[in-house]
């Protein structure tokens, strides 16, 4: 019984399994099945034709024509439908093979759809020029024109042509199905370009100002208002992927406690390989900082980071090393700082991203009592709702110091609990409004180094993308 059930199951799964003849031959039915098979074959539906020939052969075991046709089709089985195969491969994330399959489906009924999907696969692989040519081809086919324009916009955006991308997104927004996404992208495109200039101004209140940068308390906590301003420029002559130059400066001044004013500038050069799916970035940065109106720190930093997207999951890792030279007053902090982090984030829904990371850092300062090795986890949550972006970050860091500090009569060991929340409202693609709250609780085996800090701020930012 089991054997019979198994053979029936196999026969149903395999269209070329031996045909079981019907109890009573039915020539009329066999002839009708044959006619259907021929019609399906001429329509290009080989699988359905095989099913019809099987029924013809079963209905009339003497039907040599059906058996011969079935034998022929089964001996040289047709290749799988390239369009469906492409969809299967694309769903599995095998974009290279999917692009090849869609290439084979161009001449079929689903030709324009195959061209669009082939373009999307190549776009995912970062082969933007080939993808662009396919999107341009399919844009001539009205049912897919808006999707094609949307992807042409994404290609332009990646090439740093923000204005061209914006026009394409606006055009794609004519389709009600794409309108919302296309308008969001059009807004985003306004701040994208080969040259991106941005400025941010904010004001807030700091509950615990008198910490030196790095968190060293200098007396009982004192609160104060603050105002800050930053300017940044990013130049990417070849778009997202390729070399870039970056420069920026900031000022953060206290309303009353001017000795804690902080400011600085950075100049960096880097190279990004790849795009949103996978990529590598290498960067050199020179930074200088002033504290309380005096020179405080200059640093050379090398950064390497890589990322890989697998479906809704993005995996990444970073490493940086910074050679820090502090001003004479702080020179015992000078040395080499290294940090590394591995991270994973999941795009749970189109508007919700959850990220987890684990990092470690090593500061080899000139004074061993100021050197430490730290590590700890970090979590982040991002919620995009229309023009609003909400974020929550939390982290724990354990930082034991290397050696006994005679000045403290202890070998210091700290734990930092950090949290941040922000809400950002995109006003018109270039102008944005932001409120944020940062908080830290520092715990230390040396009571003088335990402290709390709260920093609420409101700010407004402006960014513009230019494509010179």
């Amino acid at each position, binding site marked *: 019984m089991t054997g019979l059930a198994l053979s029936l199951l196999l026969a149903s799964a395999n269209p070329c399994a031996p045909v079981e003849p019907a109890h009573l031959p039915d020539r*009329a*039915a066999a002839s*009708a*099945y044959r*006619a*259907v*098979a021929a*019609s*399906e074959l001429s*329509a290009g*539906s080989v*699988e*359905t034709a095989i*099913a*019809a020939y099987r*029924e013809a052969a079963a209905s009339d075991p003497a039907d040599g024509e059906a058996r011969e046709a079935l034998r022929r089709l089964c001996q040289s089985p047709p290749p799988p439908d390239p369009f469906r195969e492409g969809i299967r491969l694309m769903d599995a994330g095998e974009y290279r093979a999917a692009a090849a399959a869609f290439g084979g489906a161009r001449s079929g*009924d689903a030709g324009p759809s195959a061209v669009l999907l082939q373009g999307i696969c190549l776009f995912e692989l970062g082969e933007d020029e080939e993808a662009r040519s396919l999107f341009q081809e399919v844009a*001539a*086919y*009205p*049912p897919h*024109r*808006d999707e094609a324009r949307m992807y042409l916009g994404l290609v332009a955006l990646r090439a740093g042509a923000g204005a061209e991308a914006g026009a394409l997104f606006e055009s794609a927004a*004519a*389709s*009600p*199905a794409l309108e919302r996404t296309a308008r969001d992208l059009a807004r985003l495109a306004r701040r994208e370009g080969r040259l991106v200039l941005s400025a941010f101004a904010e004001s807030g209140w700091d509950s615990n100002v008198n910490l030196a940068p790095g968190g060293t308390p200098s007396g009982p906590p004192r609160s104060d208002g603050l105002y800050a301003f930053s300017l940044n420029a990013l130049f990417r002559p070849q778009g997202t992927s390729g070399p870039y130059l970056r420069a920026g400066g900031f000022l953060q001044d206290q309303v009353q406690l001017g000795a804690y004013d902080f400011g600085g500038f950075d100049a960096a050069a880097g190279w990004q390989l790849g795009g949103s799916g996978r990529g590598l970035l290498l960067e050199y940065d020179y930074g200088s900082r002033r504290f309380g109106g005096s020179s405080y720190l200059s640093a050379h930093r090398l950064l390497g980071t890589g990322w890989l997207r697998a479906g809704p999951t993005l995996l990444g890792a970073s490493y940086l090393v910074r050679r820090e030279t502090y001003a004479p007053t702080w020179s015992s902090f000078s040395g080499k700082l290294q940090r590394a982090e591995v991270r994973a984030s999941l795009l749970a829904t189109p508007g919700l991203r959850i990220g987890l990371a684990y990092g470690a850092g090593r500061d080899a300062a000139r004074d061993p009592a100021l050197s430490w090795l730290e590590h700890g986890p970090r979590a982040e949550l991002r919620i995009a709702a229309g023009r609003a972006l909400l974020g929550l970050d939390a982290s724990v860091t354990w930082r034991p110091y290397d050696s006994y500090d005679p000045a403290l009569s202890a070998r210091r060991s700290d734990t930092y609990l950090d949290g941040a929340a922000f809400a950002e409202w995109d006003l018109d693609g270039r102008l944005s409004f932001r409120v944020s709250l940062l908080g830290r609780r520092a715990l230390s085996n040396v009571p003088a180094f335990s402290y709390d800090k709260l920093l609420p701020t409101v700010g407004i930012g402006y960014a513009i993308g230019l494509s010179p």
Partner: protein
Amino acid sequence: MNAAVAILLASTLSAPGPGAEHLLAGARHFRDGRYGEALVEFRVAAALGEEGARAYAGASLVKLERFEEALDAFEGVPRGQDALLDYYRALACFGAHLYSCAEDILAGIGDRGGPRIAAEVASLRREIAAQRPRAPAADVIAWYTGRCTALREKNRPLLASAYCREGADLAARRAKLSGTAKPGPAAPAERP
């Protein structure tokens, strides 16, 4: 919806003719999601004179995403007799980018199909609203006209006329939006 088609078919079979068993076999395949096999059985049933088998073949073709062939299969099948089959016909129009045709059929379904079909109809109407170009461009209209001509040359006049009618509807909307009430060519009377 698959089981609904099978039940509908079983309930409409009266005196079994030579194609009845093929019709039932097709319904079983359809219910189990074997749409290719269902199509074969429905076509054999139609060839053996079973009335109504063409409409079920049309539903199978919709499931196989062969929308234009589905519209061919629905040719000559009167509308308004069964809400579920009308819904499949509307799906065929939608899949073939014939949005006015789909809307027209869905509007005729009304409350005939009960709450389940009503929910599907509402969902399809939302999709049509999302896909339909708000301000039809000239090249979109030209595409429909070109498709109409190509199908006429392939001797598929009814399907061709559906594309012509869609193009004419879009041209009329475009003219209305641009303030020039220049009517398009008169739409043929046949409906897919």
